[in-house]
């Protein structure tokens, strides 16, 4: 007997009549380039490390995509990175700290703004004092850069980048399968499909969360705790939302520069999972929410069907 109403069954995959509840966030984008793709990815990977959840990490961040030399500001291989925070101050603090520790330090890396907006946060303007008075400001063609002499040569960083207050954090899919192999295969297929959508990141490891959470917990001070309703080993011991054929659940969390981007990514994910089917992947797709009273963005799965 289904625990949640069914919206549809596509290629044998059941889709809940449910919705993902998401929240407004401030989002920004930067471009990291380096002498080759290896070092651009090295810098970007370091910078977006420990940026899975804004509650514990201060921000959520990830690599949106790899850029070809033709797409970057300085004609070198690069990476586009997105960061999200609750407010502009918190976002700036996280981005500049990570910039100073992970990009400034990375051989051959340079950093540029990659989001045009009236509202901005500091990049190079915040870390220029590392150069101890030898920093050089350069403004030309409407752009402002800081040049910082370093032992390797010179670190080049744009002064500021734009941010949007219309970002969305917490779009999600719950991927339910007979076993962990099927859940992982379906989740990986969904993440790959979502990567093709511009303006979104999936900030957890490989884009996938195995420990989805609910708000609060039985212990004092816990802001989040295990989502027992979706834990297969607790079926029977808790108010489970899992059917008998579900043996493993994974979640994909999606942050986007716009609600439309999150919506498009969720739709791409659903299509990839249903294309894969229940034999190799998942047999059910759901979404996480808090009853609809907390987040203003509601992404209904039935509106995102392929």
């Amino acid at each position, binding site marked *: 007997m289904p625990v949640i109403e069914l919206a549809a069954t596509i290629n044998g995959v059941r889709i809940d009549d449910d919705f993902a509840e998401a929240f407004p966030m401030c989002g920004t984008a930067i471009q990291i380039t380096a002498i080759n793709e290896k070092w651009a990815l090295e810098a970007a990977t370091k910078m977006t490390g420990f940026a899975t959840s804004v509650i514990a990490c201060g921000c959520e961040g990830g690599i949106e995509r790899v850029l070809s030399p033709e797409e970057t*500001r*300085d*004609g070198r291989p690069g990476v586009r990175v997105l960061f999200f925070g609750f407010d502009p101050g918190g976002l700036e603090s996280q981005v500049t700290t990570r910039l100073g520790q992970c990009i400034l330090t990375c051989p051959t890396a*340079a950093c540029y703004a990659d989001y045009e907006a009236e509202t901005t946060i500091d990049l190079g303007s915040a870390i220029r004092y590392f150069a101890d*008075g*030898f920093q*050089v*400001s*350069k*403004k*030309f*063609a409407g*752009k402002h*850069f800081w*040049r910082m002499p370093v032992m390797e*040569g*010179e670190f*080049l960083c744009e002064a500021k980048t734009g941010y949007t207050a219309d970002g969305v954090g917490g779009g999600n899919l719950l991927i339910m399968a007979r076993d962990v192999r099927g859940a992982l295969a379906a989740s990986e297929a969904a993440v790959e499909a979502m990567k093709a959508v511009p303006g979104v990141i999936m900030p957890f490891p490989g884009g996938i969360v195995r420990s989805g959470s609910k708000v609060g917990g039985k212990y004092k001070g816990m802001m989040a705790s295990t989502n027992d309703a979706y834990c297969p080993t607790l079926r029977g011991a808790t108010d489970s939302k899992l059917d008998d054929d579900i043996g493993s659940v994974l979640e994909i969390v999606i942050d986007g520069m716009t609600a439309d981007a999150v919506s498009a990514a969720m739709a791409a994910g659903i299509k990839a999972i249903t294309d894969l089917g229940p034999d190799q992947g998942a047999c059910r797709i759901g979404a996480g929410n808090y009853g609809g009273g907390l987040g203003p963005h509601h992404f209904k799965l039935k509106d995102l069907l392929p």
Partner: protein
Amino acid sequence: MSALTFRLKGEPDERIDCSSLVPDRLKSLGSSEIEKLPVGTTKRGLVAGDVFEISGDDAADIRFEGGSSRLDRIGERMSEGAIRVSGDAGFRVGRVMSGGDLQVEGSVGDLCGSGLEGGCIRVKGDCGAKLGGPDAGEMKGMSGGTIRVHGNAGERAGDRMRRGTILIDGDCGKDAASRMIAGTLIVGGHARGAPGRLMKRGTLLLMGGAERFTPTFVDAGVHDLLILKLMADGLRETFGDVPFDGSAMRKMSGDTAVLGLGEVYLPA
């Protein structure tokens, strides 16, 4: 609407002050009022209608047809719109301009872009001394904007320059970027005298080398810097072509007689 055009009736027999013929001032005036604007510099009291045949009505697009080296202060303090001069112009062209676009098809006199704060000035011919520099008694030269001179520049281009970019395709006269505070000066040709004398900060690119440097400049070696490529690309987007390509260059640091944080780049 058509461009507001000032066609010179003949070579003026006195210097003409064109500082009032800017979009900011003319946009609220009718044609009869524009004709009565004083432009003379002697007790004769010449007005615009005495010197120019005036036609058109778009004050955001001003044309001077038939230039003269006696047409002074064209575009002075303009903050918006465009001015195009089909010929030569006198001194103080675009002085303290804060926005807009000013093009001169011929050559201009001294103090072009003096105290420039914003906008873009393009001179197809040569320019006189103190391009982008300060007027007498002023502590700072240009503090923003961009100047492109396709020909040669006179002495002390970029004197006391504080911010902005000057691009000279040809040669420049003695002591370019003297007392430079910051900003960027690019010279496609040869720089005479001792460029960068007493510069504190700022960047000089001298693609045709320099006559000499003061002994207070030191060689910092050859460097391949991203900023040079970005500058070349950025200025190319604005101007179409630039006299450098962003490849590695030799850096001279100076002037150590003062702060010493300036940089002069020469072809490697």
